[in-house]
């Protein structure tokens, strides 16, 4: 599983890191860890704009976002 740890970074860095992961692994599910609501919202927007579904899970130190490509 491809995992992006964007905890400790403020926007727009989590979006930049997630973009790199999506570009580097087209068609693969990606897990993104963020520690702010702003990053959660922005990464969700990015993923949806690129046709991924987003599942958000609240974890101890922030949020765990599961991005899954459409149809998988």
């Amino acid at each position: 599983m491809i995992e992006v740890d964007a905890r400790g970074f403020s926007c727009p860095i989590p979006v930049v890191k997630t973009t790199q992961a999506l570009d580097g692994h087209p068609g693969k599910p990606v897990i993104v860890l963020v520690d702010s609501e702003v990053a959660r919202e922005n990464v969700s927007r990015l993923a949806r704009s690129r046709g991924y579904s987003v599942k958000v899970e609240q974890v101890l130190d922030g949020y765990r976002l599961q991005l899954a490509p459409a149809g998988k």
Partner: protein
Amino acid sequence: MRGLEIPHDPNLIVGFDSLDDAGVYRLTDDLAIIQTVDFFTPVVDNPYDFGRIAAANALGDVYAMGGKPVTAMNLVCFPSRSMDLAILRDILRGGMDKLHEAEVTLVGGHSVDDPELKYGLSVTGVIHPCKIVLNSGAVPGDSLILTKPLGTGIINTAIKAGMADEKAIGMVTEQMAALNRRASQLMQEVGVHACTDVTGFGLLGHACEMVQNNSIGIEISYSAVPIFAGSIEFARMGVVPGGAFRNKAFRAAMVEFAAGVPQWAPDILFDPQTSGGLLISTSPEKAKVLLEKLHYTDHREAAIIGEIVAEPKGKISVVE
């Protein structure tokens, strides 16, 4: 300032208790001074442009009240040990050039050593006490004009992410550095009911200030709002500054979005603006005249974006 006692002064026309853009103090029966201060960390990479933008932004509060800025003082926080002084010189040159354009005299300033670079100015303006334009005073039936496009916060975030191209950077830089001077003079010529400038709270945040403590509401048509090319795409891609989310959370109870308004609309309408345009409320007839004059004087993107309504009071409705 909450919790601090501010002594009453009868000559203080606009002070802390209102949500206005600057303080106004009556000196004589026909002269008041407008005072404001604003400074921030760089919003663009080019130091000269940063200086111009910071000066245009600081002057903005005086223009929003219909006043004439007269003098200014520089405020500088500079990491002198780690940064070349030539950078500071360029920033100050940018600020000076903007003040020159605005016919404002620089009278001094103050600098401190700070690991994080910041620049801005305190500005003093003058106005006749009877001619002050407040952010309250709009009446139902008024048209609402916005003089500059929205999206500077989003584009600035895209610049930080390395996603904005040179054209977008150039466009947003020129808009942020553009003075609201002419727009302010025109609104005084035509006559308006209320005005504020759109800055850190975003369009909807400042619109909320216009209806707060007034028995009016505002209806804004999101499709009529001028927006920077590219900012809708950036919002969809999640390049939205944290300030936009904070602005939205702060005013959630006052703003209602009609069904079918796309997700990017609140992102852009709450996007914090640097040196944004004037948000002006005036009668529909005068709004038409003012808009024509604005279009004629380089404010080509100025538009009527909504109207003041009697109901629901204290609310902003965003519609198609």
